């Protein structure tokens, strides 16, 4: 399998990492000594000092997937690459066309959805008040404001 190493500056939660990847180089993986899991393969390549700082990679066929990776140099001079699948980016082109129920978003908030994560200071509040334009409840001086009801 061919593995392509990248330096990623993307937030791991960034779905589309295309603009955040800098390719370092490619290598052919050595024959595995054990079975490789699709989501968490551990592969080895010949030593290349550039690969040691790689944090992201793409493993070609048959995996054809993107991975977060970390590299280690073993005693035999090989580079051991421990991979963690990034299916969000791997399937990004499919994913963005999927319908979803979105409950939080950076740009769109719906006002009446209660946000219980908001950092509210529940101990403090402030009040603004505004009077109405006029009040009819304002008797003038010596106003006839007393109603006398007599039994007629």
């Amino acid at each position, binding site marked *: 399998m061919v593995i392509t190493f990248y330096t990623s500056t993307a*937030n791991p*939660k960034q*779905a*589309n990492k295309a603009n955040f990847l800098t390719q370092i180089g490619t290598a052919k993986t050595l024959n595995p000594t054990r079975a490789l899991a*699709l*989501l968490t393969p551990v592969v080895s390549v010949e030593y290349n000092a550039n690969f040691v700082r790689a944090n992201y990679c793409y493993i070609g066929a048959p995996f054809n997937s993107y991975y977060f990776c970390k590299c280690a140099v073993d005693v035999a001079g090989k580079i051991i690459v421990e991979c963690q699948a990034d*299916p*969000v980016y*791997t*399937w990004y082109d*499919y*994913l*963005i*066309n*999927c*319908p*979803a*129920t*979105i409950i*939080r*978003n*950076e*740009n*769109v*908030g*719906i*006002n*009446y*959805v*209660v*946000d219980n*994560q908001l*950092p509210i*200071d529940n101990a*403090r*509040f402030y*009040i*603004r*008040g*505004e*009077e*109405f*334009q*006029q*009040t*009819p*409840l*304002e*008797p003038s001086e*010596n*106003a*006839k*404001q*007393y*109603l*006398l*009801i*007599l*039994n*007629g």
Partner: protein
Amino acid sequence: MATKINQTIYGTVPSTQYSKAVCPKTILNLYNDGNFDPSGDCKNGFEKSISPWGIGGGMCGDWFTINAQRSANGRFARLRMDTTENFNKPVSFWNKSIVSSSYDNKNSTRFRVAGNCYKLNNNIVSNGSTEYQLTLFGINGSNSPYGKLEYNNACVYPFNIFITRNENAANNKLTPLGEYTVSQIDNFGDDWFEDSFEMAAFEWNLAMYRSASNVPNQFYPITISTAITKSLKMGEMYKALALEDNTNRDTFYDNAIISGFNTCGVCAYPHYVSVSNDDIKLVSNKFTDTTHYNYTKYGAGKMYGVGNGNKHIFDDVSYHYEIRFFVELNGNYVEINENEIILSSQRLYILPYYKIDDTTYSSKWESIKAIIRHELAYIGFPFVMNANQWGFIGDSNVSVPIFDAHMITTGNYVTGAAASQLPNAQWGDIFSDTMPEYDPDYNPPKPSSGESDGGFLNNSTYRGVKLAGSNEFYAMDVSELRTLMTFINGMYQGNTDDTQLKIDFKGSNPNDYIVGVFAYPFNIPNTPHLSNVYIGPVETNVNANVVDKDTFGFSTFGSILVDGDALGFHGDFRDYEPYTQLELYLPMVGTAKLDPSYYVGHYVTVNYIYDINTGSLSAQILRDDTIDKIIESTISVQIPVTARDMGSYQNNLYQMKMNLLNTAVHGAASGITQTATAATKGTDINGVTNAAVSGFEYGQQFGKTIYDMKHMQPAIAQTSTASPANGMQFYNNCVLFVKHLKMLDDFDPEKYGKTVGYACLMNKQLSDVSGFTVCANADLSGIPATADEINAIQAALQSGIYL
């Protein structure tokens, strides 16, 4: 060629009383005088033409001048109405009201005017106020007593068509102002003199009306004071307009000095300026009574007729005529002659004379007075019958016109107390800016109760229901109330002779007649009708204004837009609960919570509807046009009335006397008697105790009873208990309180959105959103990934990803 321009004048209904009455609809025809300048100010041409009051001014001192200006397309763009409450201080208030571009495309400009010619419920508005009273005319076509006040000719009549000026010095011919004079006269009556008389009388009375002293808050109705005086011509009677009848008048020839008591109204004023009644000067050769007329009095050293040659001035009826006179001004005689007037750009306007058949003088005069009253009623004016009278609607001498169901005057009127029951007696004074679309069927729109009032459910509707019951209602100020209570408490105090008390109240307590006294946080709407307050059968000599039994009030506090920086709104989700709470303080009611999600971005309006007689209050809270809440409360506070229980006092006194009588009878007969020992000073009588006493004891008891009777005081009776008056002490205006929870000090909404995301709930494709996004769930079908991958994607979406 004069151009006729139709004006439709609508009466309006004041917002506070709008449900009760509407005003007459009238058509006012305006005529271009031919010199009209479409591109400029046609003020002069129109002012002289369409001053609807003309000489004599208007009711309440308000006359209006309509300046018609044309827009570029030659149509009316603006009308203006001036008022001169205190004269000489015109106040323009039509500009804002009737300028309406939406009407530019019509030949008619319509506007609404306030109520009737009088303002009830308190006052004639002082100068500078935005409230005015105007009277427009209720004459409409066939309602005319002459049948000639055609729909299109009615309104100008009768105010300005009889203003005349001396246009031609050579032949002294007086020609009326304006282009429409002749036709108007023709349309008015059969006889020029008859018309003139009526007009003269009418205008005269208007002048008289305003010539009375200006007492604030008093209403001066029109006074029909004109008396027909003397015969003027052989074989045919011509009567000068005069204040008093005078039976020693000379025949009125050209250049003949007029003797007797003669008075005429004169106005010297630039011809292009409409005159108000302030401009009317009464000129008389015998002004002796300055009580009523000093405001406009000018003494005339001589008054003489000016006719055509040496003919009798009335011989040629094709000419009008005038009276010349010398005016006494500041003690000096000043001759006003024609030249002087012309040189100073003045014109002399003279109220015309009239003729009448001398042989039927008395009956004619009465019939003419009846015609005048009829005409006044057609026009919509209240009036009194004699010069020296004034009064309020409801007074016995004041007559008020009757309007029909469509609020068109009928020519009929009601005099006295019944007049206060007329719908138009309830008309208020609020001027409305509302400009309804023209409706030939005259369906007056409901007024706005606030900025967002759409005129639906939030308007109370007068249903024509009158409260039944025998109670009488009075509106009083604190002084009147105090005077009344002092009277009640003192009327039998210290009087051991209970005869009158028994006669008056027959054992009942005078205070029982007081159903209650309630304080309101505003001036109680009342009629101007003053009535003596009776406690049962006893007249108190305290006058108070009678309150209608169907007095419902509608008041609005206005509207507030629940939004904006001033109220601390953020423009985001924090404007809603639980971060923001809305609370409305309602005076006399309390507070009401409002739902921010319902109100933010909308207007909140508060209206109070209250029943004066019961004090019940319905507070309406509206969101825009829709009622959200109705809160029932009480707007009045029952105040305790503490007075002496004169009824018990009377009963006790009577009982003691009877006991005393029994004691005397039995004591004389047997020496053994029964007596009463019940009187307790300062308190109620506890009852009668029977006891057998000796003759000696009898004497003691007899003396004690006499003593007790002399020292017995009526008990204090509290006819009502104090109810909480706390509401009166709170702030008297509605206040919208917006309570915002504070965010943490370092809260940054932008960073919050970027890292946590704003709460939302929406179903979208992920490609439709951007930035940090958290999904409750996503439909990932169609992705050819393994189950583990799908689960991983789902978990990532639920914990949040950046798109």
